[in-house]
């Protein structure tokens, strides 16, 4: 047996150790992505057919929009990111996943939390704070599950043979520390019986929204891209220094964005946010440099396969961050604030950046941990469907925003572009269905195989030694 074989054998063992936790986490993610996009479409249809869902109280825009956003971020992006993180940690540590049963339990608790939360929103029990609509019981389930996954992830990290951390480690580890801090703060300060007074609630909500949607997704997305791009192209990450610079400036400036320019709060708050938004140019440039330098001279042709997801996802991040910078300029903010432009940025961040990178990672990892090819060869079809969908959605919402802002919020100014955005969401949904079908069929086959094996073990004739004379 030569060393290469042992290594491969060892890699297969590591992948197999991640199988059950990743089945659970990716199952939650792919199902929530589909559900979230269905709600997003229902929400979006309201703007060209206001009466379409008016007869059902739970399907009005105010309910479905919150349900869609929460399903996409808590249902899809977070479990998917946690699953990808566990696998990357195991692979980078060259060790089998530690405490694999813990993330399985966590994934189930997490899914219950999300389902309870979404049902509560649809029933009118939303807390009324953006991104924090879930009731207290869901928040607790989510918080506990996250910590459980973090325990397994850090335990795996502790097993690493190479002591020096790889750049992806910084981003992913920071994400593990980031979420418990912001989620507990936001819930304890505002989603309680006695929230802080007045407009402070809104400030803390903005702070949380920025740290979740921008910073947290950026940490897991960039961390994942910095792992996969070098892995797929076979070229080293260039360079560690730029990556470190990007990491520091991203968390240092990214965390201060979020207070909109016109907010009715003391002026130092929006001013600080605007300054931090301009400074965002620095991490944008740093990520772009790492991206371009690492990909230079790449000979791997991708045509919709894994590399395409990570390349387009990283570009989506750069554009989405630039949109934040544009929104902070006083000249543009007076027009773009309160318009669809902000929604375009959020959708690009979630579906374009995190969505593409995480789906790419799932499509890459899933066959490895199952030890089988995907049942449907739809990876590149899913890529093109998702990418064109995101392009249509984001460009049409951005144009709608500019039109709406220039027309001083006439409700009909953006009608045509909103119809295009619905089409975009539909394309993203088609892509999501392909991934869901792959994961669902594979899980189903795996469960049947398990049941068959169990049955066979039960039916097998006893060995002579076990038969009592």
């Amino acid at each position, binding site marked *: 047996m030569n060393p290469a074989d042992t290594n491969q054998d060892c890699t297969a063992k590591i992948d197999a150790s991640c199988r059950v936790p990743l089945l659970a986490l990716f199952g939650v993610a792919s199902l929530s992505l589909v559900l979230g996009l269905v709600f997003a479409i229902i929400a979006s249809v309201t703007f060209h057919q*206001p009466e379409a869902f008016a007869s059902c109280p739970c399907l009005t825009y105010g309910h479905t929009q919150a349900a869609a956003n929460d399903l996409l971020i808590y249902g899809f992006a977070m479990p998917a990111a946690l699953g990808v993180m566990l696998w990357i940690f195991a692979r980078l540590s060259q060790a089998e996943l530690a405490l694999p049963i813990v993330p399985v339990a966590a994934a189930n608790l997490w899914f219950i939390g999300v389902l309870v939360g979404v049902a509560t929103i649809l029933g009118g029990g939303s807390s009324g704070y953006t991104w924090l609509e879930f009731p207290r019981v869901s928040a607790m389930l989510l918080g506990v599950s996250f910590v459980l996954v973090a325990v397994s992830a850090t335990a795996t990290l502790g097993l690493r043979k190479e002591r020096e951390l790889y750049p992806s480690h910084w981003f992913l*580890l920071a994400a593990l520390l980031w979420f418990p801090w912001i989620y507990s703060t936001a819930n304890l300060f505002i989603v309680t019986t006695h929230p802080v007074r007045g407009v402070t609630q809104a400030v*803390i909500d903005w702070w949380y929204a920025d740290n979740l949607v921008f910073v947290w997704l950026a940490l897991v997305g960039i961390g994942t891209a910095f792992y996969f791009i070098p892995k797929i192209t076979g070229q080293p990450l260039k360079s560690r220094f730029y990556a470190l610079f990007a990491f520091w400036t991203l968390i240092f400036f990214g965390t201060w964005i979020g207070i909109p320019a016109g907010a009715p709060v003391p002026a130092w708050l929006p001013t600080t946010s605007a300054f931090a938004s301009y400074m965002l140019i620095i991490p944008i440039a740093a990520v772009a440099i790492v991206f371009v330098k690492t990909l230079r001279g790449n000979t791997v042709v991708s045509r919709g396969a894994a590399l395409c997801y990570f390349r387009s996802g990283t570009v989506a991040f750069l554009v989405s961050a630039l949109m934040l910078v544009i929104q902070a300029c006083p000249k543009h903010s007076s027009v773009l604030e309160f318009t669809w432009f902000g929604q375009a940025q959020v959708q690009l961040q979630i579906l374009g950046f995190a969505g593409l990178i995480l789906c790419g990672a799932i499509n890459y990892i899933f066959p490895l941990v199952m030890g089988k090819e995907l049942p449907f060869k739809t990876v590149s079809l899913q890529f093109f469907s998702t990418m064109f969908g995101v392009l249509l959605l984001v460009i049409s919402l951005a144009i709608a925003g500019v039109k709406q802002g220039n027309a001083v919020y006439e*409700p009909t100014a953006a009608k045509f572009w909103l119809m295009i955005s619905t089409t975009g969401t539909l394309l993203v949904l088609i892509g999501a269905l392909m991934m869901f079908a792959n994961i669902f069929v594979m899980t189903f086959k795996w469960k049947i195989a398990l049941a068959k094996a169990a049955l066979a073990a039960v039916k097998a004739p006893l060995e002579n030694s076990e038969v009592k004379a």
Partner: protein
Amino acid sequence: MKSGIGVFFAVAIALGGSWLGFVVGPTLQLGTAKETAVLVSGDTWPQQRTGEATLGLQIYRANGCAACHTEQVRQQGVVYEVALTGAGKNPTAVSNVLAGLKLSGLTKEEADEASGKITGAGGKAETHLAATGTDIQRGWGVRHSVAADYLYDAPVQLGSLRAGPDLANVGGRLADANWHLMHLYAPGIVKDSRMPSFKFLFEKRKVGVTPSPDALTGLPKEFAPADGYEVVPKPEAKQLVAYLLSLRADAPLYEAPFTPATTAKP
């Protein structure tokens, strides 16, 4: 960074900074805010909402109204206006002076100069302060929203998208409760409205022995119920309208001064 401790400190420094700045800072600065005084009149601001309006805020929250409506008015600046309040003993001289004067959209100095000229000619003039900006021109408010306006709200529903109009001062500009009820039931009464109907806050029923005193009156034909039926608002609809009517941001405050339109006193 070679070890996890480095990442831990990086996160503690970066996130700790913004946590102190954007969570602890505003809590210390605004968390103990009290009512402020309205300019000139000296009344306290904001007024506590009525019980029904407080319940209405929860209907507003439950239906996610803030997904489409903001409750914050922005302002670019202020302008001075000079208003003639008396012609004095020599109206001809005053009107001659007036003919060459610009009376609105002035800076402080221009306003002083104009009012000086009018008083010089024997007339009486008042200088008024008015807020400017697209939101104000649109008629959504008379001044920008300030932190004090939201003192009693939980949850504060500032909103981030104006798919519909801003509601910060809706109680001031649309004060008719029946219109609000009709609009919730049939948003189509406003041309090109994109708002879905909130029919589920109403009950359509057969007219009993005596018609309900609460039944909607004045619905346009295409939205009116068939003969023998009436549309009666449920308590939720009434609470929501009470909340909407309680949304007023029209008192001049120290941080948002303007001269209120004088109402004729008997």
